[in-house]
């Protein structure tokens, strides 16, 4: 079954998401943005433009650039609200034959006559772009969608939105309320009789909804809207305007120049206001710095204003108060008291403002929830609804993860991880290990579980022996160790000698038998002992390298005894003894220094061998191995 696209068709911006691998995921548009401006235009060259591109040319083409069409969809032309909104938009509108609305955008080819569109056709152009961009991203055709609408939308508005989908080539599987989508995104449909408030302070509109999850049969509840209220002309844009006005007034006080009529200065003020607002969400003050904002007879003028969070809150206070008054009204209209509300969800980027969160928290007496990105939460909810309708959500397998790392004990008692913790199961991982001594014919595989660096500090799950390895110098045999954890958490460890394919395995059922407390304790232990573990690990590694170097040195001496000058031989033997002495001590620095000394001396062997062979590297010359065994498994006792 093809994917169902979840679409948040917003007044100012739209977003889309889809279920992938059981998780909702926002889909970026073709410009690489996670939201798309809900703007459509017919350019001067009769090109159809949607989104950011349409917005970029709005100044030069205001009559043919249509935005905020959501305010008009499903309405009749004569409605008071329509008439009020009509007065502030630059594009032409007229009454359609059926009493509805039509907007003009572009001209008929070769004539001066305008082309008139119904609002649903304009919305369809936005949906069409989202559909096309999603198809490009996902590499598959999208034919079905879930589209969100405000909870207060009436039947006509919902039907018109559905038609917009149809025009865009989408079968609208369901129209859902924006607050319902937000609640779905938080998984609140699973909680019995939950009472949820969705506080949605968008770019240009404010909506508040009181929801109740009513459990029907099974585990899925239906989310019902108990009351809804809002203000179609209250949003982040009002706060931005307030900041811009304040900045401009501050500048005017100092310079006597009003920069608000200068398009470039205005653009820079817009950007600076937005930046200041974002910065003041985390910092308590910020500096608005716009060099060369304008110039007069005295030369260039610069704007440099310090803005505090307190100032921003003072500027935003009237809008927050208005939103809160509407919230109170919605609560009063609902069958619940403020104390009955279990969750408050924040929607809309503006809710990142700490003052807004504080106001909501103060009123409801609980911290509002905004763990899902407030700009994307509605589209995510729509995708989840799509997943439920398409069966993807219900059929999602609950995949488990392994709570603690699994590995084997290697040379020096080090715990070498084969499967890291939090790896999703079922899974299988392999690693090649080798022997730690010459002619070692068997290896012991000791399986450990935990995050500590040394095997002895972790939980031992079991051990087995793989024998019959043909005698060979250390590091040469290749033993492939495979860890396989099935969906039930049962671990099978297999060791195979790659030379003769001889293998041995063990099945461990209790690997996931640890209690939550055990797992937590083991993780805490690992954290608490991180420093000492690191030291132990370093010591073990230094010893391993020391042993490898001694081995190489002895081998070099015996292989090239005829070619090595006696003096160098004595020197190397002395260095070997020096490493032997410090190797079993606890001083990592001393072990490393002695090993380093020996390594340096060993490099002289290569030169001596070359010299003895008349400058040509001989066949049996020996260099310290560049890649020793990655981790030799425990030596057999």
């Amino acid at each position, binding site marked *: 079954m093809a994917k169902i696209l979840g679409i948040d068709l917003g007044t100012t911006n739209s977003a889309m998401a889809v279920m992938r*691998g059981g998780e909702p995921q926002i889909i970026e548009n073709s410009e690489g943005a996670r939201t798309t401006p809900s703007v459509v235009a017919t350019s*001067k060259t009769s090109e159809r433009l949607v989104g950011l591109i349409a917005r*970029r*040319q709005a100044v*030069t083409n205001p009559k043919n650039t249509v935005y905020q069409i959501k305010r008009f969809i499903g309405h009749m032309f004569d409605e008071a609200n329509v008439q009020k909104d009509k007065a502030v938009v630059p594009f032409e509108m007229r009454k359609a034959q059926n009493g509805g609305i039509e907007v003009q955008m572009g001209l008929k080819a070769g004539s001066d006559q305008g082309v008139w569109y119904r609002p649903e056709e304009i919305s369809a152009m936005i949906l069409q772009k989202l559909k096309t961009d999603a198809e490009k991203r*996902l590499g598959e055709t999208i034919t079905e969608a879930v589209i969100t609408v405000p909870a207060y939308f009436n039947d006509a508005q919902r039907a018109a939105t559905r038609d917009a989908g149809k025009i865009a080539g989408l079968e609208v599987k369901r129209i859902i309320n924006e607050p319902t989508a937000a609640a779905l995104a938080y998984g609140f449909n699973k909680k019995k009789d939950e009472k949820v408030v969705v506080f949605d302070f968008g770019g240009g509109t404010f909506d508040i909804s009181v929801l109740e999850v009513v459990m029907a049969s099974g585990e899925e509840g239906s989310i019902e809207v108990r009351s809804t209220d809002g203000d179609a002309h209250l949003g982040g844009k009002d706060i931005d305007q307030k900041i811009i006005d304040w900045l401009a007034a501050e500048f005017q006080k100092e310079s006597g120049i009003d920069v608000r009529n200068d398009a470039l200065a205005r653009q820079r003020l817009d950007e600076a206001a937005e930046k200041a607002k974002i910065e003041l969400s985390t910092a308590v003050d910020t500096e608005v710095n716009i060099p*060369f904002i304008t110039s007069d007879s005295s030369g*260039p003028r610069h704007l440099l204003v310090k803005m505090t969070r307190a100032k921003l809150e003072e500027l935003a206070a009237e809008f927050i108060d208005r939103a809160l008054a509407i919230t109170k009204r919605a609560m009063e209209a609902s069958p619940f008291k403020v104390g009955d509300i279990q969750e408050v969800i924040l929607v809309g980027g503006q809710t990142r403002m700490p003052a807004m969160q504080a106001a909501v928290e103060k009123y409801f007496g609980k911290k509002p929830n905004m763990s899902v990105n407030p700009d994307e939460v509605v589209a995510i909810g729509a995708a989840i609804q799509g997943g439920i309708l398409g069966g993807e959500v219900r059929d999602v397998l609950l995949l488990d993860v392994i709570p603690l790392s699994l590995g084997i004990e290697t040379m020096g008692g080090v715990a070498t991880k084969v499967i890291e913790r939090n790896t999703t199961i079922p899974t299988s991982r392999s690693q090649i290990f080798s022997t730690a001594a010459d002619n070692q014919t068997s290896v012991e595989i000791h399986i450990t579980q935990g995050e500590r660096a040394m095997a002895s500090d972790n939980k031992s799950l079991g051990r087995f022996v793989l024998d019959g390895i043909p005698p060979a110098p250390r590091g040469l045999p290749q033993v492939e160790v495979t860890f396989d954890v099935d969906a039930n958490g049962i671990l099978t460890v297999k060791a195979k000698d790659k030379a003769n394919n001889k293998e041995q395995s063990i099945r461990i059922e209790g690997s996931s038998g640890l209690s939550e407390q055990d797992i937590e304790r083991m993780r805490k232990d690992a954290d608490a002992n991180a420093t000492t573990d690191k030291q132990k690990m370093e010591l073990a590694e230094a010893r391993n390298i020391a042993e490898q170097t001694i081995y190489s040195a002895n081998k070099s001496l015996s292989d090239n005894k005829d070619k090595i000058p006696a003096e160098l031989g004595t020197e190397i033997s002395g260095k070997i003894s020096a490493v032997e002495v410090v190797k079993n001590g606890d001083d990592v620095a001393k072990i490393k220094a002695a090993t380093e000394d020996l390594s340096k001396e060993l490099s002289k062997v290569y030169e001596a061998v070359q010299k003895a062979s008349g400058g040509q590297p001989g066949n049996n010359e020996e260099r310290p191995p560049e890649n020793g065994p990655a981790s030799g498994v425990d030596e057999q006792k």
Partner: protein
Amino acid sequence: MSGENLDEEFIPEEEVEMTPAFIKGLREKVRKAIEEKQKNLDGWQRTQADFANFKREEALMSEHREVRAKASIIEDLIPVLDSFEMALKHAQTKEMNLVHKQFLDALRKMDITYYGKKGDVFNPHKYEALREVPVETPEEDNCVVSVERSGYSIGEHIIRPAQVTVGAYQK
């Protein structure tokens, strides 16, 4: 999924009598098993497809990652470059021009294109109109009259469109 369940389902042939009712029951079981197999196969194929798509997208993303990283660095530097350009408009000194050139050379090395030209046809894919001014000839209509702030792009990705004043010819 576990072995025990399978064992419960399995009844040795010799222990049962093949009555029509029993066969009917078996048929029902087979039907259910096929149904379940189909569902599991579908789920498995879907997961495989999701993973294949994810890998494809990841590969694509890693190609774009460098571009994105560069774009995000330059995004923060753009306001500084804007101010520098404005400073240049007010006071052109040899030193300032040299520093500006140094900036642009550094951008070029990062494959970042710096653009915006008076006389270009206004194309919203590359330009953003800040204002419109009347022009005297029809040739200047819908063309860039002045570049207020330069545009920056990397490959096909526009980091910021050039912000311009556009000409409008009134017949």
